[in-house]
């Protein structure tokens, strides 16, 4: 067992990392093991984040026929290791970036839909909620009103945006992808 593996095992033990995740980590080549150890330490990844990141990393490498080290060397991921922001924020951004690489079309489509929602400039009290990971095409519209006057204003705002909302519903159902 080399010193790198010892360090990985020590960190895994401290974080109570599940055996399957440790095996996934040790299955990487030396460059990948070391790059992930650097990320885990720099971002103080928690156990759940380690588990998720290792799974995403392995799947990205398989999808793109590349190595974990090459994935982790990408500028956006590298930049998060010592970039601005708190460590928890950067750790969260690191996982999100891995997810964006793993699910590129999902992230792109989600971005388009979120932009369309933002462009509606919904008034306070009205919000559009999307299904998690766009797993379904259900659109949820949430309306929170205190008193009949606010309720009336929000309902009017909703009706005014009928066309925009219909467009978002269509995007959830596969339009503009």
């Amino acid at each position, binding site marked *: 067992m080399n010193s790198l593996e010892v360090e990985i095992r020590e960190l895994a033990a401290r974080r109570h990392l599940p055996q399957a995740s440790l095996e996934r980590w040790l299955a990487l080549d030396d460059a990948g093991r070391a790059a992930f150890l650097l990320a885990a330490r720099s971002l103080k990844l928690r156990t759940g984040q380690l588990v998720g990141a290792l799974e995403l990393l392995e799947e990205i490498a398989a999808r793109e026929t590349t190595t974990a080290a090459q994935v982790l060397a990408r500028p956006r991921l590298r930049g998060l290791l010592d970039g601005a922001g708190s460590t928890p924020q950067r750790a969260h951004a690191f996982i999100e970036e891995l997810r964006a690489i793993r699910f590129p079309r999902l992230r792109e489509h989600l971005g388009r839909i979120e932009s369309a929602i933002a462009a509606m400039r919904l008034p306070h009290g009205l919000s559009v909620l999307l299904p998690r990971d*766009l797993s379904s*095409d259900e659109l949820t519209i949430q309306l929170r009103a205190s008193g009949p006057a606010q309720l009336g204003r929000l309902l009017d705002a909703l009706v005014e945006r009928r066309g925009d909302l219909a467009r978002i519903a269509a995007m959830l*159902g*596969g339009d503009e992808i």
Partner: protein
Amino acid sequence: MKFELDELIIEEGSRESVLAQRVLRALGGSVSASFVADARDAVRATPGPDPFGVGKRRLVVMKRRGAFLMACPAGSAKFACCGYLVLLLASNCPMDCSYCFLQEHVANNPAFQIYSNYADAFDELDRLAASSPGRHFRVGTGELADSLALDSATEMSVDLVDFARAREHLMIEFKTKTDEIGNLLKIDPRGRAIVAWTLSPRAVWRSSEHRTASPSSRIAAARAVLDAGYRVAFHFDPIIAYEGAARDYELLIEELLDVVPAKGISFVSMGTLRMTPALRAAARRRFPDDPMLLGEEVPGADGRLRAFAALRANLYRTIHRRFSEAGAPVPAYLCMENRVMHERVFGVAPENPATIGERLATG
């Protein structure tokens, strides 16, 4: 298509059966046969790194203890279903598709089983017809096995067609990824049999559908059975939503329609890849390098992983549109999708399963 077997096990009670005799005649020279009093132990998973793969290479001829006929196991009140009935004449298959649900479904009893008392299934079909006079049924043999993978040895297709062609209420569906149509061409189905091919683009075939016939071979086989009087259908299932899939499916359909005219296609079905987490784990263990298992699937309300809804709908519409432009209407349905998805793709609400089943059986 040549399949390699490690073992042939025959249950003593099946030794004199027509099926065992046919299998011994066809395969006995290439693999030694052993006989056991009760084959139920022989079908179970054996310890080792890939019990499912080992099971595929162990052919067991035995009696089926349970019913042969059942409702399609994919059916659910949550989905807009097609009213398909399933006849279990075999379990598992010598081909090895990386996404196959059998990797989870028959994980505990993975041996390739064929049932010597399959003629009992005919009695079940007659009882069903007697209990529902006036109804028509579409009954398929390709749910837990490929309908034709071992047909050159078993010749079951001839018996099935012979049975179905004398019954106006029955439509037998063979579902396959092979081009094993030699026996089918020997008998006139008189309109009572459909041969349905699962079709995937070449990228999926190369990456995921091991030991199957190529898409072009399947299409050529479809044309041959169409000319011989069979109805033909195509299952775009699983549709795998890889980058560039929409274009590849369009090209595949073009290739299909160049050989099989739209008016000759009885129906198409569509369903995107869906996997339980356990199936995905099993498939990834067996095929770690197959990128088709690593699409943009996310968990849905039923716990299965599927491509996200917008991507699925877009692919379904692309395929449906291509068939709509083919110059003749091609009936289509979705598998394991809800009513809303059906409406999004086809623009109309789905009929109930019995009505769809009736239409597909008679159409």
